[in-house]
């Protein structure tokens, strides 16, 4: 059986990859993909801690991940709708060109 810290390292790696994608890419959709990866890294942490907890029969980690998946679905739908609306306005999905509110 894989020990807990290996799951935590994998989750930290996924979070780092998602953060790097969200902060360095120009396309708004890739930024959203990065955010989804970060959310999934957090979910992996919840499941790993639940699996190694002293009272897994309470299923707290499972419940948290279930609700987190639901919220992530809502977030993805709203985020992609926003990207489509912005694309219709500016004819581009490049974040560098959404600068009309820049001071």
């Amino acid at each position, binding site marked *: 059986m894989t020990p807990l810290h290996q*799951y935590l390292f994998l989750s930290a790696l996924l979070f780092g990859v998602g953060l790097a994608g969200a902060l360095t890419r120009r396309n708004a959709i890739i930024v959203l993909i990065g955010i989804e990866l970060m959310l999934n890294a957090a979910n992996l942490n919840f499941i790993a801690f639940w699996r190694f907890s002293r009272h897994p029969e309470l299923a707290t980690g499972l419940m948290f991940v279930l609700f987190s998946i639901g919220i992530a679905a809502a977030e993805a739908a709203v985020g992609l709708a926003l990207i489509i609306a912005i694309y219709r306005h500016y004819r581009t999905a490049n974040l560098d060109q959404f600068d009309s509110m820049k001071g």
Partner: protein
Amino acid sequence: MDPVFAFLALLTTAGAVAAVSLRNLVHCALCLVVAFAGLAALYLQLNAQFIGFAQILVYVGAVAILIVFAILLTRGSEPGNQPILSSSWQAGLGVAVLVLGALGVAVASSFVRYYPVSPAPQPTVRELGEQLMTNYVLPLEVIGLLLTAAMIGAVIIAMHEKQGPR
């Protein structure tokens, strides 16, 4: 290291790295599917069967398809040979590396390295359903409301604007 875990970790990480680094957006979405499927397999490894299948249904089935639709609807923005990185990518990469280093040091120096491996729990879907209907009934209702509101909001945001007053 457990070979199954090593394989799944490699698959998930490779999918995630490819999903944020490839130039073609459709390839990015397909690699994201690989990463999500690898995570679902990891959940199955951790004895969370219900969450693993929910992950496949929601992420592989719905979110990835939604992303593919958004990519196809914003197709005109495909960078031909424009740079794929934003103008401030050095700072972003620096922040990401710092966060990854901080998380790695935190995990490496914490007591979880010596955490005992407990016997595998066997949660049944019946238990999860009972929990959802007793302890977690209020969050369940709230998330149902949230999903409804988010879906209506997404449709309204993405709807065509009217061309002038009727």
